[in-house]
């Protein structure tokens, strides 16, 4: 992590862990670390889905969760998504078309906390609310060639429910809401960057992509 922001994020995560990692956490049968895969998806109603094809807005996530308290998990994930933005300016004119679709793949890193509800007895079982901060590293590309890179951040909130089956497998389902701050906050990173003129459209597209998703996940209890 080279950026000072990421260093700060890392430090924050460690602090959170130290606050929440109390003794006597049962985990599930003593297992406290989960590794897994999650899919956040929803029909693409506003704007293009993967590179313009209709269908689902989908984000694939590889998650790491640690049961830090009786009702608290500390979570981190690496996510991948692919979407696109329409451009009606220079690239469209170059091609003699009214609009062209620029590709917008994004690699995201999230960190957050998952709080299990009162009705749940112990993490990782039962209903939960999850709060995450997501840093998005997105590239704007045209015909496979990266034009500009952007960094954005988003706040995510997930309401879900988890179960454990076969004493190993954690099944997870829920709804996720994402929010990309606009205005000054949204432009916190690289306010004077190359391709600044596309950033608003990129952020708008990412906002729509993250706004509302169904969340499905499966993970393994490891340690």
């Amino acid at each position, binding site marked *: 992590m080279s950026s000072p922001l990421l260093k700060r994020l890392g430090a924050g995560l460690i602090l959170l862990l130290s606050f929440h990692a109390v*003794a006597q956490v049962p985990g599930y049968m003593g297992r406290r670390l989960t590794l897994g895969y999650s899919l956040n998806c929803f029909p693409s109603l506003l704007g293009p889905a993967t590179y313009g094809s209709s269908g689902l807005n989908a984000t694939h996530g590889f998650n790491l969760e640690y049961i830090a308290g*009786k009702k608290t998990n500390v979570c981190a994930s690496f996510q991948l998504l692919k979407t696109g933005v329409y451009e009606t300016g220079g690239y469209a004119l170059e091609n003699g078309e009214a609009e062209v679709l620029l590709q917008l793949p994004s690699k995201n890193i999230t960190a957050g906390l998952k709080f299990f509800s009162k*009705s749940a*007895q112990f993490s990782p*079982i039962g209903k939960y609310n999850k709060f995450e901060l997501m840093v998005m590293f997105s590239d704007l590309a045209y015909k496979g060639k990266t034009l500009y890179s952007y960094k954005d951040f988003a706040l995510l909130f997930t309401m879900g429910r988890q*179960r454990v*089956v076969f004493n190993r497998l954690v099944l997870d389902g829920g709804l996720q809401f994402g929010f990309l701050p606009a205005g000054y906050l949204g432009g916190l990173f690289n306010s004077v960057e190359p391709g600044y003129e596309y950033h608003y459209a990129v952020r708008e597209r990412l906002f729509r992509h993250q706004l509302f998703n169904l969340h499905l996940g499966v993970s393994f209890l490891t340690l």
Partner: protein
Amino acid sequence: MTFTISTFRIAFALLLLPCIAQAQFDKNYTPISSSGTLPEEFIKTARAISEEDVRTVANESDRRAKEQFIIANNYFLRDLLLGGDVLVNDPLSLYVNKVADELLKNQPAIRQKIHIYVTKSSDVNAYAFDKGFIFVNVGLLAQLENEAQLAFVLSHEITHILKKHSITQYIEEIHLSTDNTYDVGSEENRVLAKYRFSKEQESEADQQGLVMMKESGYSIKALNGAFDVMQYSYLPFEILEFKKSFFEDNNLIIPDTLNLKKTSDIKSNDDYDDTKSSHPNIRKRKGAIEPDLTVSDESSRKKYIVSEDEFKKTREIARMELCRSYLINRDYVNAVYAAYIQLKKYPDNVYLKKVVGQALYNILVNKSTHKGAVETSSGAYTFDDDLSSNKYSIPDYEKIEGASQRLYYMLDKMTSAELNTVALSYVFKAHKQSPNDKVLSNLTDSLFAELVNSNSLFPGDFSKKTKAELKAKDTVKAQPEPEQEESKYSQIKKQQQQTEVATEENFVKYAFVDLLKDEEFVTRFSKMAKGLSHKPLADDTYVPPSKKKKSKKKKKGDQPLLGIDKVAFISPFYMKVRAKHGKEYVLYYESEEKQKFLSEIQEKCADRLHLQYAHISVKDLENGDIKRYNDNALINEWLSERFRHGDNNDEIVTTSEYTQRLVEELGTKYIAWTGVYNKKGKASRNTYFFMLMDIETGKLMKFETRYGRIKDTKDVITSLVYNSLMHVSKKPKS
């Protein structure tokens, strides 16, 4: 008539029999337990039995209701049979069955259907299940006057079975609850109708029971007393004036102020209001059968057919059992009184003396106020606050009738120090009689500890000289030498002593005059006083009490780690209930399945935590498993006694005396009990509990309950059990 040698032998043996029975209780008594092989009804699962029984009502009216009743009844019966109170092949059950054999001599088909057991309950009662089971409590056996009365009780219960009264009443109650004629503001009428129906059934059982008695050879005249037994069942089994001399010796003289001058008379109310009672009142019951009590062949009938000696022996065993039963039920004054009656017959019986000592001790610890830290082993729960919620208090003596009222009065009026002194004197003398008895020895130490700790009484507080000796000394020193000046303080002390000697005040001070001559008594008392040192002693062995360490503020829900290597699991509890249309239904079959599943989860979690475990359960019993059955009974008895103490760790769990063997066999003194109560209505509600107890000391090491609006899925229950066992097995950081 010629007497042969064998006739003499028989006569001699018959004469000797009561003496043998007497000798059995002279020195000690061992509580009875089950023996032999277990009957089929203990082995079959309630589900298997229910499935068979349900088929029998398949084509009958009210099929659904009958099925529900049969299933609920079978599960209740199973719990009763395996709960530990029921005795199998013991002397009491064998005798009661002999009486039933005699009663149904001419009806072998009926006899075959009837199964009779004695239960270790102090209630003066007997009850029956339609399925053919009769349970007779030891409380009833202790009160009966003769065998004919027992036969009448049995014939009454047999009638209930033959007439299928339980299921008929259940169906009637359902009909009453749906009967439209009661619609307008008539809940009260419904209830009254229910009681009316029940009373009719009881009257029928009395009438038919009498018919059965007439068909047997038992005396009908003897039945007059049977209703008296019921009417006065709240009184002890014998009326014997309580004398304070029971606790006294030459120097321990309990003052008359603690002796109630006149005890209240026993009321004779047999015509009480029975409108809301399941049974008619005694007057009505007596009146209803009185005209039929005259039979022409009374002279040929007998009060005893099986054996008078066996009846008396059975009643004595029941009375001995009853003493313990009172202790287990926390009915301490009754325990002392019952033992007092028996000690008149068997004055050297150690078992009875232990009952008295243990009951006095448990009354005492409830009189003493324990404030501050209660000494606990590491990790045990400490209850520093007021324990009033689980405090035992002596019942109001004004409400007690008869001779035992004097004992209630005395124990109520005694201060903690007075009771402590009396109890210690009694127990130490018993200990001297049986020096090898560990219970009496430990009890002596506990009473010394109470004396020093709670009542701040030290060896120096007790006089070594009798009042007479002190009086004589005073007379000699009555004229002090003129030049010798007495200090103000010695004058005060002298004045106090003169008052004490002249009156009965401060009897405690002179209570140990004899005992202080006993080397062991002095050594143990001094050792305890030095060890606990709440008060500076004269010598330099005084250790100032260490300052209480400020404990770190615990996080909410943070429970101590106990670092225990091995536990014994007892059969878990699981109940699934469905709430529907304002009514709740127990899902018996599912509950039984889930109970097995909870047991498996316990084992898995323990394995994962490397926690060793043993089982005390009646799961999959076989005919020869009588030892397992007795072990389970013993543990249940222990638990039932311990639960009555609540979170009060100070009272002695008297059953611990008998669980020591189990501790050695199991390799652990910790027993764990887990349970789940799941109710499914609009939402699923789950209540989980876990308990860990030390069966040697009676300490509640861990008690955890968790409630959640969540389904009782395997993962939920697993995580709950794992968490509990984790706290049990993990070692605390040093």
